[in-house]
């Protein structure tokens, strides 16, 4: 399995994944033209030697051993700087003291403020592992980790392409009918459309209507329904593993939520993220005598995620079977080939 930048050839697979994800997976709408542009945007970003604008780095997880046509197992992406060309909004949960010395009352009220505070931050997004590749044991049990953490490996390798902070938006809570209580209590009062339509517009990058239609004054959460209040910063059941993984990386919820479903925005300073902080830069030592037997064993549970530490466009990440020793990592010929690495090249390595 390798993770590599997406190419135009992957359009069919990407659209297939967009269909599988459905509503609520905002960033991957089922719109071929839009997806093609996304791929082209990503390809241009990887090629850009400096990469200081609103770059998009989109990756696919490919089964390089697969014999069938279905080689693409999942995808993930990083937006280098959100909100530079179109507005980017959150609600921010704040607190305001209301206090009356005369009545001996002192209350703290929660408020939601429309905010674009995260403009210019990086975002990790579009993480998807196709159902056929989920579960299992050995290497297969590690694909979720791979497709998620590979982004930190890339960011660490291309640190100068990214700003100070990174965020990830989590799908918000839904009720038994699959509806968002937060949307019902707030968004639906101001946007004359259903949740799916609003979400689709956002996915297509049409965010201007938020500033036009959503409330401009701060909202006291006391005016929302209890279900909506209880949904603030809470995630969709299916998102629990993802949020746990991000929390483990050191991302936290600092009070920013999605304006539609109230889902939490997880965030951190990039240099504090475990996957970035703990990754190491090592020298590849390609050993023709090194065996691949262990890695080919069915129960092999890889621990070392590796990519070449060089030009962004050459990024390819894969598991290797050996632990690094001091500043070196021994690769078998097969591993070196898979990573497109030669003896003496620099590697970026993360223990997962």
């Amino acid at each position: 399995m390798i993770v590599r930048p997406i190419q135009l050839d992957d359009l069919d697979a990407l659209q297939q994944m967009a269909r599988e994800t459905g509503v609520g997976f905002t960033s991957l709408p089922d719109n071929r033209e839009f997806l093609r542009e996304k791929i082209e945007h990503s390809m241009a970003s990887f090629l850009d030697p400096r990469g200081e604008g609103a770059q998009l780095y989109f990756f696919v997880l490919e089964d390089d051993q697969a014999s069938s046509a279905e080689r693409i197992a999942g995808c993930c992406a990083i937006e280098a700087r959100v909100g530079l060309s179109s507005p980017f909004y959150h609600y921010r949960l704040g607190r305001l003291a209301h206090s009356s010395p005369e009545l001996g009352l002192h209350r703290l009220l929660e408020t939601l403020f429309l905010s674009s505070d995260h403009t210019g931050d990086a975002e990790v997004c579009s993480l998807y592992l196709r159902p056929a590749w989920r579960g299992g044991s050995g290497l297969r049990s590690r694909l979720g980790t791979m497709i998620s953490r590979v982004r930190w490996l890339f960011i660490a390798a291309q640190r100068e392409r990214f700003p100070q902070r990174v965020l990830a938006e989590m799908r918000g809570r839904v009720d038994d009918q699959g509806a968002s209580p937060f949307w019902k209590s707030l968004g639906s009062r101001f946007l004359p459309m259903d949740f799916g339509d609003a979400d689709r517009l956002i996915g297509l990058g049409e965010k201007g209507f938020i500033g036009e239609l959503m409330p401009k004054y701060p909202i006291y959460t006391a005016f929302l329904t209890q279900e909506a209040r209880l949904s603030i910063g809470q995630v969709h059941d299916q998102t629990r593993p993802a949020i746990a993984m991000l929390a483990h990386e050191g991302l936290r919820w600092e009070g920013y939520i999605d304006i539609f479903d109230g889902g939490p925005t997880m965030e951190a300073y990039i240099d504090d993220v475990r996957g970035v902080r703990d990754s190491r830069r090592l020298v590849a030592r390609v050993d023709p005598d090194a065996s691949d037997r262990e890695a080919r064993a069915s129960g092999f549970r890889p621990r070392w995620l590796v990519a070449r530490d060089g030009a962004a466009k050459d990024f390819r990440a894969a598991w290797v079977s050996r632990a690094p020793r001091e500043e070196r990592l021994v690769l078998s010929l097969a591993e070196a080939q898979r990573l497109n690495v030669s003896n003496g090249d620099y590697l970026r390595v993360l223990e997962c």
Partner: protein
Amino acid sequence: MLVVRLVERRDIDALIALAAQAVPRLTNLPEWREGLEARIESTRASLEREIATPGDEVYMFSLEDTVAGRLVGTATLRAQAGIGQAYYTYRRETMIHASPGLGLRQEVDVLSFSHEISTATQLCALAVAPEYRDDLEAVALLRRARLAFIKQHPQRFAHWCAVAFAGVLDARGRSPFWESVGRHFFDRDFAEINFHAGRRAKSFVAEMMPQLPLYEELLTPEAREVIGETHIAHRHARQAMLDEGFKPGRHIDIFDAGPVLTARAQRLRTVAESRGCTLAPREPGPDAPCALVARSGLDDFRVVAAPAVLDPDGGARLGASARRALEMESGERLLLVPPRSTVEAT
């Protein structure tokens, strides 16, 4: 005969009884001896002061049944609703949220914390004893007497007036608006807050109530339904004030969402239609129509509703009982508001 006069210290016990019987309880007339005594003292002090422009004066009036020899109603004028302590309302405003790109246009109603009414002269705290509540003339006399007083002493009052009416309560006496708004900020019942608001400086309102604009869309349906609506017991009173010339407006009470009506003082019928004249020695005929008649004066201001005829020379003829009630003799100045039927509709 019913006569309206300025409050006297001896009225205190009767006022407490009136406050206790008010339905619904009035924020501005709490059943609270110290508060009512203070208002009487304020009235007496206000009458003694030379006034060039309105300030924090209060004028409390009493309605007396001279036959029964008892006090049967009360009403108050505050020269400025919000001096010393701010008078807050919510002001209803419609915002447009439009997205040309999506071809959408939404009207969004907002309640903004407002201090605008503070500069108006406030008509408040009107209450009559239960057995006089159906006596529409008694209530009208009390209501309009205050306006006659404003006509007499314009320098003591603002150029505009405001009057608030209690909002709608549910079957259990709770205010749906309070339950949807105020409740979040004070964990107390409406009745209790109303009591506090009546007794204490209202400034605590500023400290605890939401000052940021509120979206009506986010209130409960029950609360939205009662915005600007009047308690059933006050609907007649509201209609009477509309007839008097008050206009419905955008302001509502911050506690119970009852309406606040406003008007330019000089446009109110009782003010606009009243004219000064002199008490004539003769009596009116038996079929003279009933007019509002006020004795000119400050402390000795008195008002009755009585048959009256205006002579071509500007003299006003009044019957003996009205003269007695007003404690007036021929040749003294009075203010007369002719009966409605004799005045063209404006």
